């Protein structure tokens, strides 16, 4: 991995030198093709199969090759794509979706309700990335009607329908991910694993014809992407805040707002051992400490320091989403934070670090090794909390140990998805009686989220999701239990070649990869 990175850098640097030597290697000759770079982690490891993570899973985006029943709009509400209408029965257990009758797969076969039912049943049985346990069975009633029978009501089903690409039943086997056939805007022409994927516009697409005929995606690290842009070899090159000061001739920096947030978990229970694993933390089990920490984080300063200003303050895992409760906003107030600590009995010791009943106010804050942004956020958080009198030690860890250790220590996480299920995954308790990722439990929060899943329609569900965050008395925000502290949303940055108009983006979710090309069909060259 590292070696590949080094080789990539060497190649890229030499490419940059060649350019400086006076060669003008301009990649883009035709006006209807683009070359886009993405991080190497964006390359789908299991191929372009929706059941194994293409478009779904941790990094949500439109599947391009396949089409979905519905899709999310720029304000993250739902609009029809393949579907012409959909409805849910009163008990929430049956979703009925009518689909278009004029859609063909790129091999000429028509797309019918049978294919839709096959896709969902296949995902239910095999999906390695998404939870489909709420789906009992998908049934094709006739050619254009499909019914989803649910095990439990699931009001946010449309958000699932927005990410599952429909695959053809007649052309689906274990190698589908490497030879995907779909009905989407693009056809996958060529995939050189570890290097690039080339897409060409689908001439028979049922919607508006794509303006960009050919999309080439190159997988490389940020430093190599920068070198590629400097050498003029990419039209859109992903980049990081650290590189944002670079001026590349012929390119402009594009900044896309995101819900790609970073936050830290604070274990909410007393230290204890469960099944040989340490749970809980003596400092952060005190709710006043957690509130004080939330108040003592100066998010604006952090964004300036770490992200060169390319970010927005985050107060929840779902800022700007339709289910976001604005009560989460907490202004920086160090004095109030200190007052809270004093009130809770944490008094300053000789070295400026607070103590209570012989417990020193210290915390280990972990970040994933090699992620410079998370490391910088951890360091800045440590600096800011030192002013509050908390001694924070940072530590780089690998993901092999991070999940277990997060049960008793704080960890810098990255989240942000186009579905409220993320709230559920972070705050809802599991069978153990505690939330899965960081020990926390609140019955009221649980029951609001359970109700939200059983709600009759999305609007009603949004309200319940908001109440799960803060209902006026309890919740997960500053005045509630505040089990997680959210720091910032990281803008996704790209160097875009002059003359290329990148269409308006929806708020990007976590993941700096495929989201940018969600609407590549609408991009235009001057």
């Amino acid at each position, binding site marked *: 991995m590292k070696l590949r990175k080094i080789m990539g*850098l060497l190649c890229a640097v030499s490419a940059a030198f060649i350019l400086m030597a006076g060669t003008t290697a301009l990649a883009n000759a035709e006006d209807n093709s683009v070359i886009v770079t993405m991080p190497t982690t964006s390359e789908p490891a299991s191929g372009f199969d929706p059941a194994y993570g293409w478009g779904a899973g941790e990094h949500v985006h439109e599947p391009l090759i396949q089409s979905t029943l519905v899709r999310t709009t720029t304000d993250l509400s739902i609009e029809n794509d393949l579907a012409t209408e959909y409805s849910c029965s009163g008990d929430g257990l049956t979703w009925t979706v009518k689909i278009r009758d004029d859609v063909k797969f790129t091999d000429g076969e028509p797309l019918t309700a049978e294919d839709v039912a096959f896709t969902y049943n296949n995902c239910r049985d095999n999906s390695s990335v998404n939870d489909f346990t709420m789906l009992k069975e998908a049934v094709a009633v006739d050619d254009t009607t499909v019914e989803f029978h649910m095990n439990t009501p699931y009001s946010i089903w449309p958000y699932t329908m927005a990410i599952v690409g429909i695959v053809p039943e007649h052309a689906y086997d274990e190698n589908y991910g490497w030879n995907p056939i779909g009905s989407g805007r693009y056809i996958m022409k060529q995939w050189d694993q570890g290097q690039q994927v080339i897409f060409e516009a689908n001439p028979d697409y049922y919607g508006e014809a794509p303006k960009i005929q050919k999309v080439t995606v190159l997988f490389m690290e940020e430093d190599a992407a920068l070198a590629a842009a400097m050498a003029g070899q990419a039209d859109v090159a992903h980049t990081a805040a*650290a590189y944002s000061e670079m001026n590349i001739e012929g390119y402009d920096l594009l900044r896309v707002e995101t819900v790609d947030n970073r936050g830290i978990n604070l274990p909410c229970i007393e230290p204890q051992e469960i099944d040989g694993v340490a749970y809980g933390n003596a400092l952060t089990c005190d709710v006043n400490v957690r509130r004080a920490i939330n108040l003592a984080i100066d998010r604006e300063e952090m964004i300036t320091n770490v992200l060169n200003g390319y970010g927005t303050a985050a107060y929840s895992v779902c800022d700007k989403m339709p289910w976001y409760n604005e009560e989460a906003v907490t202004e920086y107030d160090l004095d109030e934070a200190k007052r809270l600590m004093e009130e809770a009995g944490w008094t300053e010791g000789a070295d400026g670090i607070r103590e209570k009943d012989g417990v020193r106010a210290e915390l280990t804050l972990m970040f994933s090794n090699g992620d410079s942004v998370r490391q910088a956020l951890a360091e800045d958080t440590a600096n800011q909390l030192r002013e509050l009198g908390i001694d924070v030690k940072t530590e780089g860890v690998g993901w092999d140990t991070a999940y277990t250790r997060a049960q008793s220590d704080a960890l810098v996480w990255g989240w942000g998805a186009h579905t409220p299920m993320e709230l559920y995954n972070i705050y809802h308790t599991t069978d153990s009686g505690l939330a899965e990722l960081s020990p926390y439990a609140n019955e009221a929060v649980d029951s609001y989220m359970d109700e939200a899943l059983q709600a009759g329609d999305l609007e009603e569900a949004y309200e319940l999701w908001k109440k799960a965050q803060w209902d006026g008395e309890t919740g997960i925000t500053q005045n509630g239990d505040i089990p997680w502290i959210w720091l910032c949303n990281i803008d996704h940055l790209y160097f875009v070649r002059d003359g290329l108009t990148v269409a308006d983006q929806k708020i990007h979710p976590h993941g700096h990869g495929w989201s940018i090309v969600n609407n590549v069909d609408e991009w235009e060259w001057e």
Partner: protein
Amino acid sequence: MKLNQRQKARVLLVFSVLFLAGVAVAGVLCHDAAMVTDFSRKNLTPCLTYPFGTDWLGRDMLYRTLTGLSMSILIGVCAACVSAVMALLLGIAAAVFGKKVDAVISFVIDGIMGIPHILLLILISYACGKGLKGVIIGVALTHWTSLARLIRAEVMQLRQSEYILIAEKLGQSKWKIAVKHMLPHLLPQFLVGLVLMFPHAILHESSITFLGFGLSSEQPAIGVILSESMTYLIMGKWWLALFPGIMLVLTVVLFDLGGNALRSLLDPNSVHA
């Protein structure tokens, strides 16, 4: 004043020892300062206040380099000592305790030497959970082979020498012969071998940390510093790699020169050279 070779060697040895000890001590002293992050001074080019510049977290690269080198030196010395003791014991055992023991130990030596060094290091370090422990065990377990082989050959030769044969005839025990008659003879070889193992150990420690299998990334280790600097080289932040790199090379070279100087001082054949 014109110095002869022995005097030159002595000066070189003293200089190397002073420099390396200085770096090791300075690094330990500024360990805390090396961990300080201050975003108000990030990405500064080298200046009088920060002779080695600062990085993207506003850490002072001079302190980081010193601390990193001192960690490397301490890890290297520690691992090399363990390794050398292993080499000494196994080398003597191979030569003294008969054919079967010799066959087993020689086989192990050949086996370990047959596997590429860095690969074995990575495997051992990873298996031991990386970090300080993993690196020390990894370096210690991989570096003893060539010295062990040298000592074995030396002991083999010694066994045929007359004073040892006489000692045997006089009925002294194998153990006594090994400790009393052979060890003093081996000591100079051993010390030189030990010192010359340091640069290897240091380079290997920084290599596996550079590759991400050693110390974790918040540590000011020289491998971490160099691997981080890769990302910023393309932006023209040359000082992040240049000074730590030069210092690493200097350290390794001085260990090597110092070791060779020590050898010529200890070697009776060079007294009149």
